[in-house]
């Protein structure tokens, strides 16, 4: 159509009309009758929609709004509500909270607490019933004045420690915040979004189904809202403007008759209790929650300190251990969590404090029984373990029932006679093979003495273990099998080697138990024959006759162990029983005044400490809180507590068998055979040493194993400096080519690695499974 035609066709009337209309609109005051009708109608509608809230807005405001929204009731209501009814400042907050929840990883806003409160304002858990609120109990504090008598002030922290603590705290806070963030997101997902909840219905049923099955109204409780109710909960799907409206109206239950909020999930309800508003509560009553089924005692259970706390506190009191303040569990509200995190202070466990006792005078004051330890040696299958098992049984250290149980177990693998030995042989391999492999320790007390048994293995392969045991002993019981042939083979075997070894370890008192004499009808001739041979051999080894006694025994039956044999066949023996002989023996003098030294025989974890060691104190004394040095690693540690014969003690002295709990050290640095010592006077670690050695076999430059207690190291004889005179110790020949058995020589031994050794220690050299020499370090 051409422009001309368009102009021609123009309807002037219409154009004018339109113009008029425009003119009319310009004029505010004048309304057309239709408009007026619409306006009246709309105002009434809006007022109805706003119901009670209508009083808060004037008719004029409604009319104006209606005019602007061109009589759209809905929009008007929205506008009015946002503008006048609900506080205007709420709007941005609500939307902000909405945003935060949608972006899970968002940083926490500068004032998180305020916005949380605003966000959770309408949530049911905002008002937890009083009775269900957690009662926080302050952690048990150590007694005022410090554990070991020091001041109550916290331990001084070095700069590094402070830095570490600050970092730890920071990390703690951060993780707590993250956790909060997550929880919040989860909560929104669970409770606000209705559609999503509907979707989650089935997994929820899965998770809680089992518990909820019992409640009849489950289904109703989880139903989506009824269609009659205005769907107001779809907050997140609606435009922002509307959200603010919805949220703003939300807290007015009277205005909106039905519950517009999503149902809190059962999880949330379990956690936070019933929501406060009336309609909700009514609804809740319909179905009891699993939580409600709990006995009141369960609720009470958490109002007190947990059993763990109680135990810890008790331990702290008894074992004088500090309780590190427990990290509290996160509370229900974000505020609580935040404040707790703030209040959380990580304290390093303070070092154990020394009581600064004069241990030696304490030791003199203490009127303890004399303590002695003895090693039980002898050829393999001489009956060492069985004899000790019988001894313990007869002394009542173990009861008959235990032995019966062991007997049954032993019967199962067809080794009934091993039952008594199993009292000491506890390892699986030991029981399966009927051979003692490692030293077993046990204790018993008589009226005068507390004894420690060290049951040594007899098999030649385990001589290193036997050496470890012998190094801890004051005296020895040499068990000899009197059986025909057995004695003879034993004398060639470990009977000889063991007695050589215990002599070279410094044991001078020996009790010879001639065992299994019942198998030869308690023959006195056999006893005398053995006695004669062994006595000769022992005196050759260096045992004095007055330190050697012989007792005929039956380890299996217990004759002459604790009680005198009632067998008339052994009436010829009038001497003491084995136990009496033990009591007659004097333990060695203790090197109390020397610097502290202990060879570690065992390293293990115990309940008191992640790192405990045991062993006999070789020299010196030690008390709780002392610093010690572990050699050869050179690591320092502190003594957390000491057990002497399994009873806690503040101190220990040389000769006692102790368990020491260490702190401030990595278990990696502590191995069996290491030596713990006084850091002020540490034992040196050497790579080569000079030894005044008595040769049991030919010595020449060769590879040897070096044994000192538990310590076992590989090395070689580097050179033989001189042959020495046995009595005077003067040099008889320089640089000999070879040392013959029985000769004394000064030799230089080079070790494969650094080993803690010092002058005056007794060392055994072995080679190819044979003991070749023993001697003193120079």
């Amino acid at each position, binding site marked *: 159509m051409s422009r001309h035609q368009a102009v021609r066709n123009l309807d002037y009337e219409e154009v004018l009309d339109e113009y008029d209309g425009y003119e009319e609109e310009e004029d505010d005051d004048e309304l057309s009758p239709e408009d007026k009708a619409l306006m009246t109608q709309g105002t009434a509608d809006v007022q109805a929609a706003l119901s009670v809230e209508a009083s808060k807005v004037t008719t004029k405001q409604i009319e104006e709004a209606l005019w602007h929204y061109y009589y759209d009731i809905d929009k008007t209501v929205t506008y009015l509500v946002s503008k006048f009814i609900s506080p205007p400042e709420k709007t941005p907050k609500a939307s902000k909270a909405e945003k935060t929840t949608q972006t899970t990883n968002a940083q926490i806003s500068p004032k998180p607490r305020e916005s949380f409160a605003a966000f959770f304002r309408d949530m049911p858990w905002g008002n937890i019933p009083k009775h269900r609120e957690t009662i926080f109990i302050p952690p048990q504090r150590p007694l005022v004045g410090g554990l070991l008598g020091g001041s109550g002030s916290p331990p001084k922290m070095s700069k590094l420690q402070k830095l570490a603590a600050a970092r730890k705290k920071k990390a703690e806070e951060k993780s707590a915040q993250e956790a909060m963030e997550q929880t919040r997101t989860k909560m929104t997902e669970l409770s606000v979004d209705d559609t999503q909840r509907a979707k989650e219905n089935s997994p929820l049923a899965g998770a809680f189904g089992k518990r909820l099955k019992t409640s009849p109204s489950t289904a109703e409780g989880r139903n989506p809202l009824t269609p009659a109710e205005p769907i107001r909960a779809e907050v997140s799907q609606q435009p922002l403007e509307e959200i603010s409206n919805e949220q703003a109206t939300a807290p007015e239950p009277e205005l909106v008759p039905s519950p517009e909020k999503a149902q809190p999930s059962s999880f949330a309800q379990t956690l936070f209790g019933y929501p406060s508003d009336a309609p909700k509560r009514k609804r809740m009553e319909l179905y009891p929650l699993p939580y409600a089924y709990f006995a009141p005692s369960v609720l009470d259970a958490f109002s007190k300190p947990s059993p763990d706390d109680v135990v810890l506190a008790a331990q702290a009191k008894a074992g004088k251990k500090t309780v590190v303040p427990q990290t509290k569990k996160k509370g229900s509200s974000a505020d609580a969590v935040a404040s707790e995190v703030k209040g959380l202070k990580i304290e390093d466990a303070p070092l154990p404090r020394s009581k600064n006792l004069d241990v030696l005078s304490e030791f003199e004051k203490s009127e303890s029984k004399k303590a002695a330890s003895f090693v039980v040696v002898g050829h393999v299958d001489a009956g060492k373990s069985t004899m000790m098992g019988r001894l313990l049984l007869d002394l009542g250290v173990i009861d008959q029932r235990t032995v019966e149980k062991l007997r049954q177990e032993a019967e199962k693998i067809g080794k009934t006679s091993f039952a008594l030995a199993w009292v000491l042989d*506890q*390892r*699986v*391999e030991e029981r399966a*093979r009927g051979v003692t492999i*490692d*030293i*077993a*320790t046990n204790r018993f007390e008589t009226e005068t003495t507390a004894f420690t048994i060290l049951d040594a293995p007899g*098999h030649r*392969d385990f001589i290193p273990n036997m050496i470890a045991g012998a190094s801890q002993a004051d005296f020895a019981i040499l068990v000899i099998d009197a059986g025909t042939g057995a004695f003879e083979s034993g004398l060639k075997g470990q009977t000889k080697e063991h007695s050589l070894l215990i*002599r*070279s370890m410094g044991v001078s008192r020996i009790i010879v138990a001639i065992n299994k004499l019942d198998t030869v009808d308690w023959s006195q001739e056999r006893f005398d024959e053995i006695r004669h041979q062994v006595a000769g051999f022992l*005196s*050759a*080894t*260096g045992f004095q006759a007055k330190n050697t006694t012989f007792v005929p025994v039956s380890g299996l039956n217990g004759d002459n162990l604790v009680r005198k044999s009632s067998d008339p066949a052994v009436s010829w023996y009038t001497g003491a029983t084995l136990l009496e002989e033990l009591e007659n023996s004097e333990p060695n003098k203790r090197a109390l005044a020397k610097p502290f030294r202990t060879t570690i025989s*065992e*390293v*293990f*974890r115990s309940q008191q400490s992640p790192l405990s060691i*045991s062993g006999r104190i070789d020299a010196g004394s030690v008390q709780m809180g002392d610093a010690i040095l572990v050699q050869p690693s050179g690591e320092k540690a502190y003594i957390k507590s000491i057990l002497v014969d399994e009873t806690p003690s503040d101190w220990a002295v040389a000769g006692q068998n102790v368990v020491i709990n260490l702190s401030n050290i990595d278990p990696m640095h502590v*191995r*069996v055979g290491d030596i713990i010592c006084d850091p002020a006077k540490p034992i040196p670690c050497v790579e080569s040493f000079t030894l*005044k050695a*008595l040769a049991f076999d*030919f010595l*020449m*430059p*060769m*590879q040897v194993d070096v044994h000192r207690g538990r310590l*076992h190291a*590989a090395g*070689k*004889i*580097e050179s033989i400096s001189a*042959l020495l005179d*046995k*009595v005077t*110790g003067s040099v*008889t*020949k*320089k*640089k*000999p*080519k*070879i040392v*013959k*058995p*029985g*000769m*004394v020589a000064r030799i230089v031994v080079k070790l*494969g690695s650094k080993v803690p050794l010092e002058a005056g220690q007794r060392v055994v050299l*072995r080679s*190819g*499974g*044979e003991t070749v020499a*023993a*001697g*003193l370090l120079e």
Partner: protein
Amino acid sequence: MRFVSKKQSLTAIDPAAGLALLPTEPEDMWHANNLIAISDIVKAHAVRKVAMTGSTGSVTTERVHTDLTIRVTSTFFDPAASSLHVSGVVIKENAWVNIGQHHTLDLELQRPFTIWKNDGWDTVALQTLTEAVNDDKPEALVAVVMQEGIANICLITDFQTLIKQRVESSIPKKRSTAKETSGGMTAFYEKTLSTMLRAVDFSSPRPLLLASPGFIAQDFRAYMQSQGVLRADKRLQRIAKDAVVVHSSTGYVHSLNEVLKSPEVQATMRDKKFTSESKLIDQLYERLRKDDGRAWYGRDPVEKAVMEGAVGRGGGVLLINNAFFRSLDVATRKRYVALVDKVKEDGGEAKVLSSDHESGERLDALGGIAAILTYPLYDLDEDEEDHDQQEGSAHGEDIEGVEVI
């Protein structure tokens, strides 16, 4: 190792032309280390960084591949990696390097090198060469020497004992319950097994020795077997089945001696070089014990004995560590070569023991050189004033009244 030229033979080595050799397997590096003595001349492929000045005066450095000829001043052999570094002074100029500059050659597998012996091919060098070019090489033997908490995984070839790995683990002792102990042992076995399978290539069957005091080796073998079944690993089952369990007194490496002596090993590996060497050392120690004047150790007594012709026909054996021929000055080397030649001349046996073997280590303890004589000789010790008779009487003495102990 093989000759580069097919025409080359052991008998006709032209000292002037040099000998071109091609190392083909890692152990050849060990042989090369024994062959190359100080002041020998070695020509091999080299990578050298060369600084060049351009026409404008700018200096650029470049890595150039070239052949270099050096006079050896020192060698370094890394047994674990089987690599050999030969340092020396360049004696032949080329486009990149001037005479007198220092260079360290890294000998590589499958790269030929040429060697000129400074003092000709002596008997010891020839013997080493013979061993080196010998194609007939038995499989290396794997030995695991263990005790409670310690395991040494070794690879024993004809010339070396390589300690591949050492496993250490702490095992709770008796105080703790029995259950914990066995748990500790199982953890130890597991650690050992996984370390062994990692350290040693079992893709071709090779003999495995398990040695320990007590029952540990047995238990370990049983553990391997059960693991093989558990993992349905046929190879592991086979390894466990073929493993030989031997007794040893400790878990340290020097217990390998006992292992190699044991009848089980002797039966299976009779033809191995190290077993015969080990036996010889045992003989020597046995004679030393007897002190019958037929066994001597140390340089001076042995030299005296050899010069007297006491190490000759009828059981005379000279044992000498190959380390003696490696990094000594020419004069000392010649002296030892002369000893070897003299023994051979007298009809005795001259054994060059590998110092990388346990037998070599034992010999090393005796000063690296020892001899079994055909007839007894006394008073070979130079500072010997006393007589053997005195020693004999001392031997007869009783050992009672020992106060020094």
